[in-house]
């Protein structure tokens, strides 16, 4: 069994006004189908602030699902939870099918970053996991440095 650690990255972007529209159109049914009690409690404030916070959390959920790479049915949205800590940072908490997928992938840790500005909310999720499922063919050739501009 390989002891290498692989990294998976997921990202997603959501239009804030679309979340606001969903809240207006579907109300509690939308909120309770997608978000946990903790998340809803973390997204208080004016309707605009609330929509932006919810949109960032939706982006984090989708980014996490991209990291989990489900085959077949996706985890319940509420089983992928953004937990806000009193210091202001957020972490991801998985349960149910999402937790099972994480176990299968050997995901040992998840890190998340959320942001929103204007009508755009986004999130990036990074996972550390076993390399077994993520193994890539290695040619054995030495890595070639790539210069991306800027002063050296």
């Amino acid at each position: 069994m390989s002891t290498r650690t692989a990294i998976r990255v997921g990202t997603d972007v959501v239009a804030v006004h679309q979340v606001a529209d969903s809240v207006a159109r579907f109300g509690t049914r939308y909120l309770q189908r997608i978000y946990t009690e903790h998340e809803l409690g973390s997204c208080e404030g004016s309707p605009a602030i609330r929509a932006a916070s919810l949109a960032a959390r939706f982006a984090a959920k989708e980014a996490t699902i991209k990291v989990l790479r489900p085959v077949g049915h996706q985890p319940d949205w509420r089983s992928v939870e953004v937990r806000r800590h009193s210091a202001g940072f957020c972490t991801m908490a998985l349960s149910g099918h999402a937790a099972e997928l994480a176990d299968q992938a050997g995901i040992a840790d998840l890190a998340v970053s959320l942001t929103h500005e204007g009508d755009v909310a986004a999130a990036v999720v990074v996972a550390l996991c076993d390399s077994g499922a993520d193994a890539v063919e290695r040619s054995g050739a030495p890595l070639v440095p790539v210069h991306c501009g800027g002063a050296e």
Partner: protein
Amino acid sequence: MMDESIRNILAEHGNLPLDVAKIRDEDDLYQAGLTSHASVNVMLALEDEFGVEFPETMLCKSTFESVAAIRVALSALTGP
């Protein structure tokens, strides 16, 4: 009748950047621009329209990937 309702819901909630009438039954809606968040709205609107609830086991991209796939999913929920 069901197809017309599906297309009306896609037009209203799918946020697709094209005319839904031009989408063929088997066309990939995600390729056409359906996002994950929009698919949630489509799902909730379908539930309202047809009086059903999509179980977790049907919450996969393939359920909403085309008009034909949505029709099959709804038929499974509404019965014969």
